[in-house]
């Protein structure tokens, strides 16, 4: 019988949750790294027992952890993130030039083929890679030194590179997204990058159609169709069919097109999920109702999925890395909230159950489908 392993990062530690393919009974282990912000835990597709975790804290900086046994035990790994060459600048809040400073890792993306290779998206925005199982890290400086980079300015959450998507059909193609800067693509394995923001429209920047400066919150891809990306922007849900060359809006009839998460059904490339958030000033779900919205048509037409989710007096947020899908025959969908709940749907979103409640604020959710 297949199993699923859920990797949950929270504001005060990490949790590993396992279940069988029914996804009804769950074993919850943790907190690992208690008291630390665990921005992300992710597993290697090439060796599912190889996990990487990014823990950080304002007092103590960044620590990386590695597990070789599926999260039962962990060993501290390398945490020396040095920018390559001369340290460049980005804009600061007062529009002065501010030197890049490493703050923390936001997202870890293991290689699709090599368990020892893992990418890290970090704040201040840059992309690092380790090829020795997280012992050492080297920057891929092309994105930080990209022509537009000196003009990037942090948003309220910091200047973070938070999304990394590796193209499963083209080993040289990588997509990334940076808050308050936009989406970027490399076609040479991370050496050089180009902004891919044409079609994004953001009224909160001086030129709403600028090449960079858009606050992309998250992006998702179905592995069978790597030229199609879905994006949850600060406002607007977007889609590209040409690997980011052009985007068009698919917000359609959503109650709000502000949000953070977006994901794609594991077997239906045109079935996508978002969780609308009321606004950038409120950061909680509209009308006190926690609703996942699903489109089975690749966007524009959305249905609210509410069965099993609180439909009154609910004021939680769901952060950008806090949704995941498994690849069991009946696609499982998972998300975690700022209120510390982690929900599962074992039927592609039709109905939901809480796996846990009252965890610390959930920062990230990943799922592994295990044989």
């Amino acid at each position, binding site marked *: 019988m297949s199993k699923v392993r859920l990797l949950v990062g929270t504001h005060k530690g990490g949790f590993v949750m396992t279940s069988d393919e029914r996804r009804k009974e769950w074993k919850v282990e943790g907190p690992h790294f*208690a*008291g*630390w912000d665990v921005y992300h835990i992710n597993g290697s597709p090439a060796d599912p027992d190889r996990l990487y975790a990014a823990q950080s*804290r*304002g*007092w*103590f*900086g*960044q*620590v990386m952890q590695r597990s070789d046994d599926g999260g039962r035990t962990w060993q*501290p790994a390398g*945490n*020396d*993130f*040095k920018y390559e060459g001369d340290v460049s600048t980005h804009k600061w809040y007062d529009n002065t030039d501010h030197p890049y400073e*490493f703050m923390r890792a936001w997202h870890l993306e293991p290689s699709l083929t090599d368990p020892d290779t893992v990418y890290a998206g970090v704040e201040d925005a840059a992309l690092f890679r380790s090829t020795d199982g997280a012992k050492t890290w080297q920057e891929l400086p092309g994105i930080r030194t990209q022509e537009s980079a000196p003009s990037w300015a942090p948003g309220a959450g910091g200047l973070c590179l938070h999304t990394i998507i590796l193209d499963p059909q083209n080993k040289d193609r990588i997509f990334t997204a940076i808050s308050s800067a936009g989406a970027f693509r490399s076609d040479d394995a991370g050496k050089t990058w180009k902004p891919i923001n044409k079609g994004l429209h953001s009224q909160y920047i001086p030129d709403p159609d600028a090449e960079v400066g858009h606050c992309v919150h998250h992006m998702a891809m179905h592995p069978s169709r790597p030229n199609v990306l879905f994006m949850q922007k600060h406002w607007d849900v977007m889609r590209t069919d040409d690997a980011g060359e052009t985007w068009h809006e698919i917000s359609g009839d959503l109650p709000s097109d502000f949000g953070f998460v977006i994901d794609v059904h594991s077997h239906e490339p045109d079935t996508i999920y978002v969780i609308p958030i009321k606004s950038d000033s409120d950061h909680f779900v509209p009308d006190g109702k926690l609703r996942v919205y699903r489109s089975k048509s690749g966007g524009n037409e959305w249905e609210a999925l509410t069965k099993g989710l609180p439909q009154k007096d609910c004021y939680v947020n769901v952060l950008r890395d806090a949704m995941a899908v498994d690849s069991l025959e009946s696609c499982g969908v998972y998300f975690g909230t700022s209120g510390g709940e982690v929900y599962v749907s074992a039927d592609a979103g039709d109905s939901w159950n809480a796996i846990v409640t009252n965890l610390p604020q959930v920062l990230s959710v990943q799922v592994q489908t295990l044989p």
Partner: protein
Amino acid sequence: MIRVVLPANLRTLAGVGKEVELQVSGPVSQRALLDALEAEYPMLCGTIRDQTTKRRRPLLRFFACEEDHSDDSPDAPLPEDVATGREPYLIVGAIAGG
């Protein structure tokens, strides 16, 4: 032996108790003490001082003999009582406030 008291999160990370003992060769300064600590417990690298600048993390303080040594020169000698192990060197996380 030099005695060093770590904040709780770093004790867990290093897998040690409240206090660790270190052998420091040569003059006992903040830099020498932290070099010895990181050599003995490499998982602490970067958690007390920045990896690149080697500056103290802003929310950590260094106390000894009822004095705040946080802003001393890293190469200034530590108090004799710390150097001889009579008093511990305290690495303290600033309280969160509120």
